[in-house]
């Protein structure tokens, strides 16, 4: 259930569900009302219904599985992928988008990797089956199979 109101980075009048997947923690957040985002990669404001699926590597810093009535902040998590669906108005003011959308929009950032990084990763992302999401970071191909 979502309550109409405002949230900042997923915390406020939002509900979140944290699900443990294969090598990943999936955070599903729903907001009805205003949803303000302050991160440099996705800063903006959505007004309407917002559903965000965030995938973070499974680590001690990740939130514990369960339901969170006032949402969970993912601002400090190293996210591997994010899918955000908005029905309403979405204003973006970040390095990937400066503008606005009215209607339905789906923004997915599958990878955002600094240019000086040497890494190997495999991601299987199924938004309708969060528990089936797979994320692997490895040094050799064999350990990622």
């Amino acid at each position, binding site marked *: 259930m979502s309550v109409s109101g405002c949230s900042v980075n997923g915390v406020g009048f939002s509900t979140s569900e944290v699900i443990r997947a294969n090598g990943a923690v999936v955070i599903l957040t729903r907001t009805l009302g205003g949803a303000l985002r302050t991160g440099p990669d996705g800063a903006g404001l959505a007004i309407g219904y917002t559903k965000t699926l965030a995938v973070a590597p499974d680590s001690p810093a990740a939130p514990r599985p369960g339901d969170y009535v006032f949402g969970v902040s993912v601002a400090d998590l190293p996210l591997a992928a994010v899918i955000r669906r908005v029905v309403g108005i979405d204003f973006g003011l970040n*390095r990937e988008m*400066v503008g606005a959308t009215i209607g339905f929009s789906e923004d997915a*950032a599958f*990878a955002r990797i600094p*240019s000086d990084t040497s890494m190997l990763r495999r991601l299987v*992302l199924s938004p309708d089956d969060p528990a089936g999401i797979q994320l692997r970071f490895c040094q050799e*191909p064999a350990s990622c199979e």
Partner: protein
Amino acid sequence: MRVIGWSQKVAVIAAVLVLLSACEPAQLYLANHTVVGINAKVNPEQGNGILVIGYDRTFATVIPRSVEQQENGLVTRDAMSALVCSNLVVDGITIRRYTESLATGQAATNFANNLGAQNNAAAAAKIKNFFDCFQDQGRPPANPAGGNQ
């Protein structure tokens, strides 16, 4: 208090957009954007703008063009090395499934070299298993670069 006119406001906004547009991408970025409705936006990293009325879907890969590297004690600049196999399945207007195998930096260069190595077929086979889009191809790319399947 001094109140600035609308023309000055427009000039300030334009200056901010120009400054943002001058930013060089510093991250490998794979993204998908779908809109049904009205969308007006500028992409500062790619330096372009778009106005959409109706339906539009874009899948983009942005590879940094200028990465600092150390080579024989000298600092050089080159495009980022990346080896990517990605597969996006869309049903209607929403994403159903996305799979990706990705290597960046030195790891991408090493994998690309091993992919073409004639004397290490086992290593090449493992890499082809990992990067599934190379499984049906006889010859790998000469230089690693980003790509979408």
